[in-house]
């Protein structure tokens, strides 16, 4: 027990001693992006406690409070700092709950995409031959279409296959599958490339000589050495996934209005643009942009920090 704790604290010491931590500390922009990201994630996870109102509990809604402007307008109140929508939902609360859905769908899609991509990339890179050319052919064809288009079509097909009444409850899963199936290619390409380099190294040959099975070699020897770039792609992929989800929801084929993500909120708000109720669309928009920007900045930093050429 004390052995593991000391090993963990060793690892923590090593982390604070590393180049990665140093480059993090020395970039103000990165620190800012990290703080913003963590803040958004925490307020989203604990939306239940942080948000002034549960926007999806009809008992807490008051139609008399509908379409109120933000607090700095004459008829705005502190109770609804960022105003309310047409059903009297507090925009700030809807925003926090919406971020939760956006982050959840984005995160799950990236994890799924990484699992698919890393598995196929390892197989293609390690086995080579016809497995390799099959996987990479599929990747090439898919890569020539934008992810949003692939996701849109998968979503459309899923709608056709599922019974109508289950659309809404399954919408989030369909969305996650659609986004992950449309974004796995960069993972597969990178992992394949590094695997092809690693598999000829001495340590892999040694593992083969002592008779480890290919699966074990791939998982225990090759995988840990190709994970760096995967982390970078995953971070930037999170930003892309959140944007893709928002775009699909905005187009009306994403999550249903009963559990709105930031994209759904923007779509709802868009309907009230011409009646001058700009706050319904602008605040979710700002939240989305800030979140994506912060995650992108983190991804950029991670790419530079893990790139030995730039050190």
């Amino acid at each position, binding site marked *: 027990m004390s052995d593991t704790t000391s090993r963990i604290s060793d690892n923590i010491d090593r982390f604070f001693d590393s180049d990665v931590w140093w480059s993090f500390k020395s970039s103000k922009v990165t620190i800012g992006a990290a703080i913003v990201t963590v803040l958004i994630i925490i307020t989203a996870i604990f939306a239940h406690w942080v948000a002034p109102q549960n926007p999806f509990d009809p008992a807490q809604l008051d139609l008399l409070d509908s379409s109120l402007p933000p607090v700095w307008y004459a008829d705005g109140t502190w109770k609804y700092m960022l105003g309310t929508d047409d059903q009297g939902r507090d925009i700030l609360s809807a925003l926090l709950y919406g971020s939760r859905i956006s982050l959840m769908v984005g995160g799950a899609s990236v994890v799924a995409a990484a699992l698919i991509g890393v598995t196929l990339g390892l197989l293609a890179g390690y086995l080579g031959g016809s497995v390799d050319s099959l996987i990479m052919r599929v990747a090439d064809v898919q890569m020539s279409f934008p992810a949003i288009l692939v996701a849109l079509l998968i979503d459309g097909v899923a*709608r056709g296959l599922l019974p109508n009444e289950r659309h809404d409850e399954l919408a989030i899963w369909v969305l996650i599958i659609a986004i992950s199936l449309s974004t796995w290619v960069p993972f597969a390409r990178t992992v394949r490339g590094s695997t092809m380099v690693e598999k000829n190294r001495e340590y892999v040959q040694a593992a083969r000589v002592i008779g480890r099975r290919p699966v074990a070699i791939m998982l225990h020897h090759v995988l840990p050495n190709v994970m760096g770039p995967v982390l970078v792609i995953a971070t930037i992929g999170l930003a892309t996934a959140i944007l893709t989800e928002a775009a699909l929801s905005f187009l009306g084929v994403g999550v249903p209005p009963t559990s709105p993500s930031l994209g759904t909120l923007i779509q709802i708000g*868009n309907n009230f643009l*011409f009646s001058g109720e700009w706050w319904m669309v602008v605040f979710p928009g700002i939240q989305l942009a800030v979140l994506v920007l912060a995650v992108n900045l983190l991804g950029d930093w991670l790419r530079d920090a893990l790139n030995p050429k730039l050190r």
Partner: protein
Amino acid sequence: MLALIIRRLLQSVMVMLTVALIAFIMFRFVGDPIAQMVGQDTPIADREAMREQLGLNDPAPIQFARFVFNVVQGNFGISYQKGVPVDELILSRLPATLELSFVAALFALVVAIPMGIYTGLYPRRWLSNVFLTVSLLGISLPTFLIGILLILFFGVMLGWLPTYGRGEIVDLGAWTTGLLTESGIRSLLMPAFTLGLFQLTLIMRLVRSEMLEVMRTDYIKFARARGLSNRAVHFGHALKNTLVPVITITGLQLGSIIAFSIITETVFQWPGMGLLIVQAIQFVDIPVMSTYLIVIAFFFVIINMIVDILYHVVDPRLRAETGGKGH
């Protein structure tokens, strides 16, 4: 060169057949085509007769062959939602999307290349930092949000520009254009800017990084040592060598502009193919979906092929490798 073109053509045909297969599977197996065409109370016997008549009981390969045969002739079936032949539907929407896409691409290129050259040549000037920061915003702001903000500002608050539709259009027979009327051009401004902005940032960053790379090479130092003017070095030697990747990426981006127009068209209610496909997906209008897939794939394949051939024209090294004797 000829061998290259033939090889690329064959590859393109293979890709198109694969896409057609996916479209066929969607068309045939997602939902029941018969159920979409007949009323609730059509007897089973009539349905079976229709099934037989339409050849839906034939073996799948024969059905696929017939599907491809029909597609080649431009016969894509009938929209479930609108009851009109899909090819007419797509053709009537095509000009709007293509016009928007080309204007957006042109705008992106014309603005992005000078910005990229400037930031590449003078990476430390403050204007370069402004360009880079703006481009980071351009990448992070989702397209639909930019569109909505533009509508809010220029459409609703200032009332300068129309916020939806194509404005007055001129019918040229097979083609409709909004470029010939004032209201058409005014309607095009915001959608084209919205659609082009992302590509603009992408191309600018690409030109910049290529410029930075090229400026470090020996032949640039050598050109300077020969006493060439800045202008000759920058444009004669450096820019020329950054163009190969720029052509490739821009060409490939043209395809994704057409695809990304889905979002822009929804925001501005632009009556193009994108708006059509979004409605088709909401209504699970499979014939329209599979046709859209084929049409878009066709564009992509054509663009990829042209880019590939251009690549060989621009870069003499590639010409030498493929065995061309053209120089």
